Protein backbone atom coordinates (compact mmCIF):
# COMPACT_ATOMS: atom_id res chain seq x y z
CA UNK A 1 0.00 0.00 0.00
CA UNK A 2 2.76 2.41 0.92
CA UNK A 3 4.36 1.84 -2.46
CA UNK A 4 1.32 3.17 -4.26
CA UNK A 5 2.75 6.65 -4.40
CA UNK A 6 1.83 9.56 -2.22
CA UNK A 7 0.17 11.92 -4.65
CA UNK A 8 -0.86 15.51 -4.12
CA UNK A 9 -4.04 14.70 -2.22
CA UNK A 10 -2.11 12.61 0.31
CA UNK A 11 0.17 15.58 1.00
CA UNK A 12 -2.80 17.93 1.33
CA UNK A 13 -4.34 15.53 3.87
CA UNK A 14 -1.07 15.35 5.79
CA UNK A 15 -0.77 19.13 5.79
CA UNK A 16 -4.33 19.55 7.05
CA UNK A 17 -3.82 17.04 9.86
CA UNK A 18 -0.53 18.61 10.91
CA UNK A 19 -2.23 22.02 10.96
CA UNK A 20 -5.08 20.65 13.13
CA UNK A 21 -2.60 19.00 15.50
CA UNK A 22 -0.61 22.22 15.87
CA UNK A 23 -3.80 24.19 16.49
CA UNK A 24 -4.69 21.74 19.27
CA UNK A 25 -1.21 22.03 20.79
CA UNK A 26 -1.08 25.86 20.82
CA UNK A 27 -2.58 26.22 24.34
CA UNK A 28 0.08 23.85 25.68
CA UNK A 29 2.77 25.96 24.04
CA UNK A 30 1.35 29.11 25.67
CA UNK A 31 1.52 27.43 29.07
CA UNK A 32 5.10 26.28 28.53
CA UNK A 33 6.53 29.61 27.42
CA UNK A 34 4.80 31.60 30.14
CA UNK A 35 5.33 29.27 33.10
CA UNK A 36 9.02 30.15 33.28
CA UNK A 37 8.85 33.72 31.97
CA UNK A 38 10.23 36.51 34.20
CA UNK A 39 7.39 38.68 35.52
CA UNK A 40 8.88 41.93 34.16
CA UNK A 41 9.03 40.49 30.67
CA UNK A 42 5.39 39.44 30.80
CA UNK A 43 4.21 42.88 31.78
CA UNK A 44 6.40 44.48 29.11
CA UNK A 45 5.93 42.13 26.17
CA UNK A 46 2.82 40.13 26.99
CA UNK A 47 2.14 36.42 26.64
CA UNK A 48 3.53 35.85 23.13
CA UNK A 49 7.22 36.59 23.59
CA UNK A 50 9.58 33.69 24.18
CA UNK A 51 11.04 33.77 27.70
CA UNK A 52 14.47 35.44 27.81
CA UNK A 53 15.25 33.95 31.19
CA UNK A 54 14.32 31.01 33.32
CA UNK A 55 12.22 32.23 36.22
CA UNK A 56 10.37 29.75 38.39
CA UNK A 57 8.93 32.32 40.77
CA UNK A 58 5.40 31.90 39.36
CA UNK A 59 5.59 28.17 39.93
CA UNK A 60 7.06 28.61 43.40
CA UNK A 61 4.46 31.19 44.44
CA UNK A 62 1.69 28.84 43.44
CA UNK A 63 3.33 25.83 45.09
CA UNK A 64 3.56 27.67 48.38
CA UNK A 65 0.20 29.47 48.41
CA UNK A 66 -1.75 26.29 47.72
CA UNK A 67 0.54 23.79 49.46
CA UNK A 68 0.60 21.97 46.15
CA UNK A 69 2.66 19.09 47.51
CA UNK A 70 -0.16 18.37 49.91
CA UNK A 71 -2.73 18.49 47.06
CA UNK A 72 -0.64 16.05 45.00
CA UNK A 73 -0.44 13.71 47.99
CA UNK A 74 -4.22 13.94 48.59
CA UNK A 75 -4.96 13.22 44.94
CA UNK A 76 -2.57 10.26 44.96
CA UNK A 77 -4.02 8.80 48.17
CA UNK A 78 -7.63 9.21 47.04
CA UNK A 79 -7.13 7.97 43.48
CA UNK A 80 -4.88 5.12 44.61
CA UNK A 81 -7.34 3.87 47.24
CA UNK A 82 -10.32 4.24 44.92
CA UNK A 83 -8.76 2.33 42.05
CA UNK A 84 -7.75 -0.63 44.23
CA UNK A 85 -11.01 -0.79 46.20
CA UNK A 86 -13.22 -0.28 43.13
CA UNK A 87 -11.43 -3.05 41.23
CA UNK A 88 -11.85 -5.38 44.23
CA UNK A 89 -15.54 -4.59 44.44
CA UNK A 90 -15.95 -5.04 40.68
CA UNK A 91 -14.27 -8.45 40.85
CA UNK A 92 -16.55 -9.67 43.64
CA UNK A 93 -19.65 -8.46 41.79
CA UNK A 94 -18.56 -9.77 38.43
CA UNK A 95 -17.69 -13.14 39.96
CA UNK A 96 -21.24 -13.50 41.26
CA UNK A 97 -22.87 -12.09 38.11
CA UNK A 98 -20.60 -13.32 35.30
CA UNK A 99 -19.53 -16.71 36.65
CA UNK A 100 -22.05 -17.43 39.40
CA UNK A 101 -24.87 -16.40 37.04
CA UNK A 102 -27.05 -15.40 39.96
CA UNK A 103 -30.78 -15.31 39.31
CA UNK A 104 -31.99 -11.90 38.27
CA UNK A 105 -28.53 -10.93 37.09
CA UNK A 106 -29.93 -9.08 34.08
CA UNK A 107 -31.79 -6.79 36.48
CA UNK A 108 -28.76 -6.38 38.70
CA UNK A 109 -26.58 -5.54 35.70
CA UNK A 110 -29.20 -3.03 34.60
CA UNK A 111 -29.09 -1.47 38.06
CA UNK A 112 -25.30 -1.14 37.89
CA UNK A 113 -25.63 0.39 34.43
CA UNK A 114 -28.14 2.95 35.67
CA UNK A 115 -25.93 3.71 38.68
CA UNK A 116 -23.14 4.34 36.20
CA UNK A 117 -25.19 6.90 34.29
CA UNK A 118 -26.80 8.70 37.24
CA UNK A 119 -25.49 12.26 37.33
CA UNK A 120 -23.70 13.17 40.54
CA UNK A 121 -25.84 16.33 40.67
CA UNK A 122 -28.79 14.15 41.64
CA UNK A 123 -26.90 12.57 44.55
CA UNK A 124 -24.75 15.39 45.81
CA UNK A 125 -26.99 17.12 48.30
CA UNK A 126 -28.18 13.98 50.14
CA UNK A 127 -24.59 12.69 50.17
CA UNK A 128 -23.43 16.02 51.60
CA UNK A 129 -26.19 15.89 54.20
CA UNK A 130 -25.50 12.26 55.15
CA UNK A 131 -21.74 12.81 55.30
CA UNK A 132 -22.29 15.69 57.72
CA UNK A 133 -24.57 13.49 59.82
CA UNK A 134 -22.04 10.66 60.17
CA UNK A 135 -19.04 12.96 60.58
CA UNK A 136 -17.42 12.15 57.22
CA UNK A 137 -17.83 15.62 55.71
CA UNK A 138 -14.52 17.22 54.68
CA UNK A 139 -12.63 13.93 54.95
CA UNK A 140 -10.78 12.18 52.17
CA UNK A 141 -12.47 8.95 53.26
CA UNK A 142 -15.89 10.27 52.19
CA UNK A 143 -14.64 10.89 48.64
CA UNK A 144 -12.90 7.49 48.57
CA UNK A 145 -16.11 5.67 49.54
CA UNK A 146 -18.28 7.52 47.03
CA UNK A 147 -15.94 7.10 44.09
CA UNK A 148 -15.25 3.46 44.92
CA UNK A 149 -18.97 2.82 44.44
CA UNK A 150 -19.31 5.01 41.33
CA UNK A 151 -16.29 3.47 39.58
CA UNK A 152 -17.29 -0.05 40.64
CA UNK A 153 -20.62 0.44 38.87
CA UNK A 154 -18.77 0.74 35.57
CA UNK A 155 -16.24 -1.94 36.52
CA UNK A 156 -18.96 -4.45 37.40
CA UNK A 157 -20.76 -3.83 34.14
CA UNK A 158 -17.61 -4.28 32.05
CA UNK A 159 -16.08 -7.15 34.02
CA UNK A 160 -19.31 -9.16 34.18
CA UNK A 161 -19.46 -9.35 30.41
CA UNK A 162 -15.77 -10.30 30.28
CA UNK A 163 -16.16 -13.03 32.92
CA UNK A 164 -19.33 -14.24 31.18
CA UNK A 165 -17.04 -15.72 28.53
CA UNK A 166 -14.61 -17.23 31.05
CA UNK A 167 -13.59 -20.80 29.99
CA UNK A 168 -15.89 -23.13 31.95
CA UNK A 169 -13.48 -26.09 31.66
CA UNK A 170 -10.97 -24.26 33.83
CA UNK A 171 -13.54 -23.73 36.57
CA UNK A 172 -14.69 -27.36 36.35
CA UNK A 173 -11.11 -28.64 36.54
CA UNK A 174 -10.41 -26.53 39.61
CA UNK A 175 -13.62 -27.73 41.23
CA UNK A 176 -12.59 -31.36 40.54
CA UNK A 177 -9.34 -30.66 42.32
CA UNK A 178 -11.37 -29.63 45.34
CA UNK A 179 -10.83 -25.87 45.18
CA UNK A 180 -13.51 -23.84 46.91
CA UNK A 181 -15.28 -20.87 45.35
CA UNK A 182 -13.09 -18.29 47.03
CA UNK A 183 -9.91 -20.14 46.05
CA UNK A 184 -11.07 -20.41 42.45
CA UNK A 185 -11.66 -16.65 42.40
CA UNK A 186 -8.20 -15.71 43.71
CA UNK A 187 -6.13 -18.45 42.15
CA UNK A 188 -7.76 -18.81 38.74
CA UNK A 189 -10.19 -16.06 37.78
CA UNK A 190 -8.14 -13.09 39.01
CA UNK A 191 -4.77 -14.14 37.51
CA UNK A 192 -6.34 -14.94 34.13
CA UNK A 193 -8.28 -11.65 34.00
CA UNK A 194 -5.23 -9.60 34.96
CA UNK A 195 -5.00 -7.61 31.70
CA UNK A 196 -8.58 -6.35 32.05
CA UNK A 197 -8.08 -5.64 35.75
CA UNK A 198 -4.97 -3.62 34.90
CA UNK A 199 -6.92 -1.51 32.44
CA UNK A 200 -9.62 -0.90 35.04
CA UNK A 201 -7.02 0.12 37.65
CA UNK A 202 -5.53 2.70 35.31
CA UNK A 203 -8.94 4.02 34.25
CA UNK A 204 -10.21 4.34 37.82
CA UNK A 205 -7.02 6.07 38.92
CA UNK A 206 -7.12 8.68 36.15
CA UNK A 207 -10.88 9.22 36.31
CA UNK A 208 -10.75 9.77 40.05
CA UNK A 209 -7.70 12.01 39.73
CA UNK A 210 -9.59 14.24 37.27
CA UNK A 211 -12.88 14.37 39.20
CA UNK A 212 -13.95 17.82 40.30
CA UNK A 213 -17.61 18.18 41.25
CA UNK A 214 -17.92 15.93 44.34
CA UNK A 215 -14.41 16.66 45.68
CA UNK A 216 -15.23 20.38 45.38
CA UNK A 217 -18.31 19.91 47.57
CA UNK A 218 -16.76 17.49 50.06
CA UNK A 219 -13.19 18.69 50.50
CA UNK A 220 -13.48 22.24 51.77
CA UNK A 221 -10.40 22.62 53.92
CA UNK A 222 -7.11 23.31 52.17
CA UNK A 223 -5.38 20.36 53.78
CA UNK A 224 -7.79 17.88 52.15
CA UNK A 225 -8.06 19.31 48.64
CA UNK A 226 -7.11 17.43 45.52
CA UNK A 227 -5.18 18.98 42.64
CA UNK A 228 -8.23 19.96 40.53
CA UNK A 229 -10.06 21.35 43.58
CA UNK A 230 -7.03 23.37 44.68
CA UNK A 231 -6.77 24.91 41.22
CA UNK A 232 -10.50 25.42 40.84
CA UNK A 233 -10.98 27.23 44.13
CA UNK A 234 -7.97 29.43 43.43
CA UNK A 235 -9.47 30.33 40.07
CA UNK A 236 -12.77 31.12 41.80
CA UNK A 237 -11.03 33.56 44.13
CA UNK A 238 -9.60 35.54 41.19
CA UNK A 239 -6.30 36.07 42.97
CA UNK A 240 -4.08 34.55 40.33
CA UNK A 241 -1.99 36.58 37.95
CA UNK A 242 -1.06 35.20 34.53
CA UNK A 243 2.32 33.91 35.68
CA UNK A 244 1.05 31.96 38.67
CA UNK A 245 -1.76 30.68 36.44
CA UNK A 246 0.59 29.21 33.87
CA UNK A 247 2.91 27.96 36.60
CA UNK A 248 -0.01 26.31 38.35
CA UNK A 249 -1.31 24.81 35.15
CA UNK A 250 2.11 23.45 34.25
CA UNK A 251 2.37 21.80 37.67
CA UNK A 252 -1.10 20.33 37.27
CA UNK A 253 -0.43 19.10 33.74
CA UNK A 254 2.82 17.31 34.57
CA UNK A 255 1.35 14.39 36.55
CA UNK A 256 -1.41 13.71 34.03
CA UNK A 257 0.97 13.79 31.09
CA UNK A 258 3.28 11.45 33.02
CA UNK A 259 0.37 9.04 33.59
CA UNK A 260 -0.50 9.34 29.93
CA UNK A 261 3.02 8.39 28.87
CA UNK A 262 3.33 5.56 31.41
CA UNK A 263 -0.06 4.07 30.69
CA UNK A 264 -0.36 4.95 27.01
CA UNK A 265 -0.28 1.35 25.81
CA UNK A 266 -2.68 0.13 28.48
CA UNK A 267 -4.94 3.05 27.72
CA UNK A 268 -5.16 2.58 23.98
CA UNK A 269 -5.91 -1.06 24.62
CA UNK A 270 -8.33 -0.09 27.37
CA UNK A 271 -10.27 2.47 25.39
CA UNK A 272 -10.91 -0.27 22.87
CA UNK A 273 -12.08 -2.60 25.62
CA UNK A 274 -14.47 0.07 26.79
CA UNK A 275 -15.72 0.72 23.29
CA UNK A 276 -16.90 -2.79 22.55
CA UNK A 277 -18.52 -3.35 25.89
Amino acid at each position, binding site marked *: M*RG*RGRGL*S*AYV*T*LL*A*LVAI*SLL*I*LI*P*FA*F*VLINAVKPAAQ*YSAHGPLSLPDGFDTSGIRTFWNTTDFGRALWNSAVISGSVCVLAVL*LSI*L*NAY*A*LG*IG*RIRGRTWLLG*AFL*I*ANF*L*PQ*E*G*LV*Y*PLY*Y*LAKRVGLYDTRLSVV*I*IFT*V*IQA*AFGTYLLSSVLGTFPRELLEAARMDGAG*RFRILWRIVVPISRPTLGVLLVFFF*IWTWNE*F*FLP*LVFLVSNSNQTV*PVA*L*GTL*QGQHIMN*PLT*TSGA*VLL*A*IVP*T*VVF*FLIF*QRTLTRG*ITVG*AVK
Partner: protein
Amino acid sequence: MTSTSTALADAKDRGRQARKHRSLPYLPYLLPSVVLFACVIALPFCMNVFTSFNDWSGVGPMKWAGLANYRRLMHDSEFWASIWHSAALVAAMAVLPTIIGLVLAAALFDVIAKRFGPRVASILRACIYLPQVLPIVVAAIVWGWILDPQYGALNALLRAAGLGFLAHDFLGDPKTALLTVMAILVWFQLGYPVVIFMAALQRVDPALAEAAEIDGASWRQRLWRVTVPQIRPEIYVVLLTCTVASLRAFAWIYALTSGGPGTATQVPSYYSYISFFTNLDVGYGSAIATVLTLIIIVVAAVFLGAQRRHQAMAD
Protein backbone atom coordinates in the same frame (compact mmCIF):
# COMPACT_ATOMS: atom_id res chain seq x y z
CA MET B 1 -45.00 -33.71 19.94
CA THR B 2 -46.61 -33.00 23.30
CA SER B 3 -44.35 -35.46 25.07
CA THR B 4 -41.25 -33.84 23.62
CA SER B 5 -42.35 -30.39 24.65
CA THR B 6 -43.16 -31.53 28.20
CA ALA B 7 -39.83 -33.30 28.34
CA LEU B 8 -38.16 -30.12 27.16
CA ALA B 9 -40.04 -28.07 29.71
CA ASP B 10 -39.08 -30.58 32.37
CA ALA B 11 -35.43 -30.42 31.45
CA LYS B 12 -35.59 -26.63 31.38
CA ASP B 13 -37.21 -26.66 34.78
CA ARG B 14 -34.62 -28.98 36.21
CA GLY B 15 -31.88 -26.85 34.68
CA ARG B 16 -33.36 -23.79 36.32
CA GLN B 17 -33.58 -25.57 39.66
CA ALA B 18 -29.99 -26.74 39.40
CA ARG B 19 -28.82 -23.27 38.46
CA LYS B 20 -30.69 -21.79 41.35
CA HIS B 21 -28.90 -24.11 43.71
CA ARG B 22 -25.53 -23.54 42.17
CA SER B 23 -25.84 -19.74 42.09
CA LEU B 24 -26.98 -19.38 45.70
CA PRO B 25 -23.48 -19.67 47.22
CA TYR B 26 -22.35 -16.72 45.11
CA LEU B 27 -24.70 -14.33 46.88
CA PRO B 28 -22.24 -13.34 49.65
CA TYR B 29 -19.93 -11.90 46.99
CA LEU B 30 -22.58 -9.30 46.19
CA LEU B 31 -23.16 -8.33 49.79
CA PRO B 32 -20.57 -5.54 50.14
CA SER B 33 -21.87 -3.89 46.98
CA VAL B 34 -25.49 -4.18 47.99
CA VAL B 35 -24.76 -2.33 51.24
CA LEU B 36 -22.52 0.29 49.62
CA PHE B 37 -24.81 0.93 46.65
CA ALA B 38 -27.78 1.27 48.97
CA CYS B 39 -25.98 3.94 51.03
CA VAL B 40 -24.19 5.84 48.28
CA ILE B 41 -26.56 5.59 45.30
CA ALA B 42 -30.06 4.33 46.08
CA LEU B 43 -30.75 6.19 49.33
CA PRO B 44 -29.36 9.57 48.14
CA PHE B 45 -31.22 9.19 44.86
CA CYS B 46 -34.55 8.67 46.68
CA MET B 47 -33.79 11.46 49.16
CA ASN B 48 -33.11 13.84 46.26
CA VAL B 49 -36.41 13.01 44.57
CA PHE B 50 -38.25 13.41 47.89
CA THR B 51 -36.56 16.74 48.62
CA SER B 52 -37.65 18.04 45.22
CA PHE B 53 -41.26 17.98 46.51
CA ASN B 54 -40.35 20.12 49.50
CA ASP B 55 -39.39 23.61 50.39
CA TRP B 56 -36.11 23.38 52.30
CA SER B 57 -33.08 25.53 52.99
CA GLY B 58 -30.89 22.63 54.09
CA VAL B 59 -31.37 23.22 57.82
CA GLY B 60 -34.48 22.89 59.95
CA PRO B 61 -37.59 20.97 58.98
CA MET B 62 -38.70 20.47 55.38
CA LYS B 63 -42.01 21.89 54.27
CA TRP B 64 -44.06 19.78 51.88
CA ALA B 65 -44.63 21.74 48.70
CA GLY B 66 -46.07 19.17 46.32
CA LEU B 67 -45.30 20.05 42.73
CA ALA B 68 -44.56 23.70 43.48
CA ASN B 69 -40.85 23.42 42.64
CA TYR B 70 -41.65 21.80 39.29
CA ARG B 71 -44.28 24.41 38.50
CA ARG B 72 -41.70 27.06 39.26
CA LEU B 73 -39.24 25.32 36.91
CA MET B 74 -41.76 25.44 34.07
CA HIS B 75 -41.91 29.24 34.30
CA ASP B 76 -38.26 29.86 35.10
CA SER B 77 -36.62 31.43 32.05
CA GLU B 78 -33.15 30.72 33.51
CA PHE B 79 -33.99 27.03 33.67
CA TRP B 80 -35.20 26.93 30.06
CA ALA B 81 -32.14 28.87 28.95
CA SER B 82 -29.98 26.32 30.76
CA ILE B 83 -31.71 23.48 28.88
CA TRP B 84 -31.03 25.15 25.52
CA HIS B 85 -27.42 25.78 26.47
CA SER B 86 -27.12 22.11 27.32
CA ALA B 87 -28.38 21.21 23.86
CA ALA B 88 -25.71 23.49 22.41
CA LEU B 89 -23.06 21.78 24.53
CA VAL B 90 -24.26 18.36 23.33
CA ALA B 91 -23.71 19.58 19.77
CA ALA B 92 -20.23 20.82 20.68
CA MET B 93 -19.13 17.89 22.79
CA ALA B 94 -20.89 14.92 21.19
CA VAL B 95 -22.15 15.61 17.65
CA LEU B 96 -19.32 17.72 16.22
CA PRO B 97 -16.45 15.65 17.71
CA THR B 98 -18.09 12.46 16.43
CA ILE B 99 -18.42 13.78 12.87
CA ILE B 100 -15.03 15.50 12.75
CA GLY B 101 -13.43 12.59 14.61
CA LEU B 102 -14.78 10.14 12.06
CA VAL B 103 -13.27 12.10 9.16
CA LEU B 104 -9.93 12.57 10.97
CA ALA B 105 -9.73 8.93 12.05
CA ALA B 106 -10.49 7.73 8.52
CA ALA B 107 -7.92 10.15 7.06
CA LEU B 108 -5.27 9.04 9.58
CA PHE B 109 -6.05 5.38 9.02
CA ASP B 110 -6.59 5.34 5.23
CA VAL B 111 -4.19 8.00 4.04
CA ILE B 112 -1.56 8.88 6.63
CA ALA B 113 -0.88 5.41 8.04
CA LYS B 114 -0.76 3.83 4.58
CA ARG B 115 1.19 6.51 2.70
CA PHE B 116 3.40 8.00 5.40
CA GLY B 117 3.67 5.11 7.85
CA PRO B 118 1.89 4.21 11.07
CA ARG B 119 4.44 6.18 13.13
CA VAL B 120 3.30 9.50 11.65
CA ALA B 121 -0.34 8.54 12.17
CA SER B 122 0.14 7.63 15.81
CA ILE B 123 2.11 10.82 16.56
CA LEU B 124 -0.68 12.94 15.06
CA ARG B 125 -3.24 10.92 16.98
CA ALA B 126 -1.37 11.52 20.25
CA CYS B 127 -1.31 15.29 19.56
CA ILE B 128 -5.05 15.37 18.93
CA TYR B 129 -5.69 13.25 22.03
CA LEU B 130 -3.49 15.28 24.40
CA PRO B 131 -6.22 17.67 25.73
CA GLN B 132 -8.16 14.62 26.91
CA VAL B 133 -5.58 13.76 29.56
CA LEU B 134 -6.04 17.11 31.31
CA PRO B 135 -8.33 17.46 34.29
CA ILE B 136 -11.21 19.60 32.95
CA VAL B 137 -10.60 22.33 35.51
CA VAL B 138 -7.00 22.65 34.37
CA ALA B 139 -8.03 22.86 30.72
CA ALA B 140 -10.67 25.44 31.63
CA ILE B 141 -8.14 27.55 33.53
CA VAL B 142 -5.76 27.48 30.56
CA TRP B 143 -8.52 28.76 28.30
CA GLY B 144 -9.76 31.30 30.80
CA TRP B 145 -6.28 32.75 30.84
CA ILE B 146 -5.74 32.60 27.06
CA LEU B 147 -9.08 34.36 26.52
CA ASP B 148 -8.56 37.01 29.20
CA PRO B 149 -9.38 40.37 27.57
CA GLN B 150 -6.48 42.23 29.22
CA TYR B 151 -3.48 39.96 29.38
CA GLY B 152 -4.68 36.89 27.46
CA ALA B 153 -2.75 35.36 24.61
CA LEU B 154 -5.53 35.20 22.01
CA ASN B 155 -6.15 38.91 21.81
CA ALA B 156 -2.40 39.55 21.86
CA LEU B 157 -2.06 37.12 18.96
CA LEU B 158 -4.85 38.81 17.00
CA ARG B 159 -3.28 42.24 17.52
CA ALA B 160 0.15 40.96 16.55
CA ALA B 161 -1.33 39.53 13.35
CA GLY B 162 -2.90 42.89 12.49
CA LEU B 163 -6.37 41.55 13.24
CA GLY B 164 -6.81 43.76 16.28
CA PHE B 165 -10.39 44.57 15.27
CA LEU B 166 -11.26 40.93 16.07
CA ALA B 167 -9.90 41.23 19.61
CA HIS B 168 -12.78 40.76 21.98
CA ASP B 169 -13.80 39.73 25.48
CA PHE B 170 -15.01 36.39 24.15
CA LEU B 171 -16.19 34.91 27.45
CA GLY B 172 -17.40 38.22 28.86
CA ASP B 173 -19.79 39.09 26.06
CA PRO B 174 -23.16 37.32 26.35
CA LYS B 175 -23.33 37.11 22.55
CA THR B 176 -20.08 35.16 22.17
CA ALA B 177 -19.73 33.37 25.54
CA LEU B 178 -21.66 30.21 24.67
CA LEU B 179 -20.03 29.88 21.23
CA THR B 180 -16.62 30.27 22.84
CA VAL B 181 -17.36 27.56 25.39
CA MET B 182 -18.56 25.32 22.54
CA ALA B 183 -15.33 25.85 20.59
CA ILE B 184 -13.27 24.97 23.67
CA LEU B 185 -15.32 21.78 24.16
CA VAL B 186 -14.64 20.68 20.58
CA TRP B 187 -10.91 21.25 21.18
CA PHE B 188 -11.06 19.17 24.34
CA GLN B 189 -13.25 16.30 23.19
CA LEU B 190 -12.02 15.63 19.64
CA GLY B 191 -9.25 13.21 20.64
CA TYR B 192 -11.60 10.71 22.21
CA PRO B 193 -13.58 9.75 19.08
CA VAL B 194 -10.41 9.83 16.98
CA VAL B 195 -8.70 7.24 19.19
CA ILE B 196 -11.76 5.00 19.45
CA PHE B 197 -12.60 5.16 15.75
CA MET B 198 -9.00 4.40 14.75
CA ALA B 199 -9.10 1.31 16.96
CA ALA B 200 -12.45 0.41 15.40
CA LEU B 201 -11.10 0.74 11.88
CA GLN B 202 -8.41 -1.78 12.71
CA ARG B 203 -11.09 -4.26 13.62
CA VAL B 204 -12.98 -3.80 10.35
CA ASP B 205 -12.37 -6.04 7.37
CA PRO B 206 -10.75 -3.91 4.63
CA ALA B 207 -12.07 -6.15 1.85
CA LEU B 208 -15.44 -4.37 1.70
CA ALA B 209 -13.95 -0.90 1.34
CA GLU B 210 -11.50 -2.19 -1.29
CA ALA B 211 -14.33 -3.78 -3.23
CA ALA B 212 -16.24 -0.49 -3.08
CA GLU B 213 -13.15 1.36 -4.30
CA ILE B 214 -12.82 -0.98 -7.27
CA ASP B 215 -16.50 -0.35 -8.02
CA GLY B 216 -15.64 3.33 -8.26
CA ALA B 217 -17.02 4.59 -4.96
CA SER B 218 -15.46 7.88 -3.89
CA TRP B 219 -13.66 8.25 -0.56
CA ARG B 220 -16.65 10.01 0.93
CA GLN B 221 -19.08 7.37 -0.26
CA ARG B 222 -16.87 4.62 1.15
CA LEU B 223 -16.69 6.43 4.49
CA TRP B 224 -20.44 6.93 4.90
CA ARG B 225 -21.73 3.80 3.17
CA VAL B 226 -19.15 1.18 4.09
CA THR B 227 -17.07 2.27 7.07
CA VAL B 228 -19.72 3.97 9.21
CA PRO B 229 -22.10 0.99 9.24
CA GLN B 230 -19.23 -1.30 10.18
CA ILE B 231 -18.08 0.72 13.17
CA ARG B 232 -21.59 1.58 14.34
CA PRO B 233 -21.11 0.01 17.83
CA GLU B 234 -18.22 2.37 18.55
CA ILE B 235 -20.15 5.36 17.19
CA TYR B 236 -22.98 4.59 19.60
CA VAL B 237 -20.62 4.32 22.55
CA VAL B 238 -18.87 7.59 21.67
CA LEU B 239 -22.13 9.47 21.14
CA LEU B 240 -23.64 8.16 24.36
CA THR B 241 -20.65 8.80 26.63
CA CYS B 242 -20.02 12.25 25.12
CA THR B 243 -23.69 13.24 25.37
CA VAL B 244 -23.89 12.25 29.02
CA ALA B 245 -20.61 14.08 29.72
CA SER B 246 -21.82 17.24 28.00
CA LEU B 247 -25.11 17.25 29.92
CA ARG B 248 -22.99 17.37 33.05
CA ALA B 249 -20.49 20.05 31.93
CA PHE B 250 -20.18 21.36 35.51
CA ALA B 251 -16.41 21.81 35.78
CA TRP B 252 -16.22 23.75 32.50
CA ILE B 253 -18.91 26.21 33.49
CA TYR B 254 -17.60 26.53 37.06
CA ALA B 255 -14.08 27.39 35.99
CA LEU B 256 -14.77 29.30 32.76
CA THR B 257 -17.87 31.46 33.20
CA SER B 258 -19.81 30.61 36.40
CA GLY B 259 -22.82 30.42 34.10
CA GLY B 260 -22.44 34.02 33.02
CA PRO B 261 -22.29 36.69 31.88
CA GLY B 262 -25.82 36.92 33.29
CA THR B 263 -27.22 33.52 32.43
CA ALA B 264 -25.59 33.29 28.99
CA THR B 265 -23.85 29.99 29.72
CA GLN B 266 -26.01 28.63 32.54
CA VAL B 267 -26.51 24.83 32.45
CA PRO B 268 -28.77 22.68 34.69
CA SER B 269 -25.79 21.08 36.41
CA TYR B 270 -24.36 24.42 37.55
CA TYR B 271 -27.81 25.86 38.23
CA SER B 272 -28.60 23.03 40.67
CA TYR B 273 -25.23 23.50 42.40
CA ILE B 274 -25.91 27.21 42.86
CA SER B 275 -29.42 26.48 44.16
CA PHE B 276 -28.02 23.98 46.68
CA PHE B 277 -24.98 25.76 48.01
CA THR B 278 -25.34 29.47 47.20
CA ASN B 279 -29.08 30.18 47.18
CA LEU B 280 -29.78 27.56 49.89
CA ASP B 281 -32.87 26.67 47.86
CA VAL B 282 -32.37 22.93 48.27
CA GLY B 283 -35.85 21.84 47.21
CA TYR B 284 -35.55 23.76 43.95
CA GLY B 285 -32.02 22.51 43.35
CA SER B 286 -33.25 18.95 43.88
CA ALA B 287 -36.00 19.51 41.31
CA ILE B 288 -33.42 20.70 38.75
CA ALA B 289 -31.16 17.74 39.57
CA THR B 290 -34.08 15.33 39.27
CA VAL B 291 -35.01 16.68 35.83
CA LEU B 292 -31.36 16.42 34.77
CA THR B 293 -31.24 12.83 36.01
CA LEU B 294 -34.41 12.00 34.08
CA ILE B 295 -33.03 13.55 30.89
CA ILE B 296 -29.81 11.56 31.18
CA ILE B 297 -31.60 8.28 31.87
CA VAL B 298 -33.94 8.81 28.91
CA VAL B 299 -31.01 9.67 26.62
CA ALA B 300 -29.11 6.58 27.77
CA ALA B 301 -32.18 4.35 27.36
CA VAL B 302 -32.84 5.68 23.84
CA PHE B 303 -29.21 5.09 22.81
CA LEU B 304 -29.01 1.61 24.30
CA GLY B 305 -32.37 0.71 22.75
CA ALA B 306 -31.29 1.93 19.32
CA GLN B 307 -28.00 0.08 19.68
CA ARG B 308 -29.78 -3.14 20.57
CA ARG B 309 -32.17 -2.78 17.61
CA HIS B 310 -29.26 -2.28 15.22
CA GLN B 311 -27.47 -5.25 16.69
CA ALA B 312 -30.56 -7.41 16.27
CA MET B 313 -30.84 -6.27 12.66
CA ALA B 314 -27.19 -7.02 12.02
CA ASP B 315 -27.55 -10.52 13.48
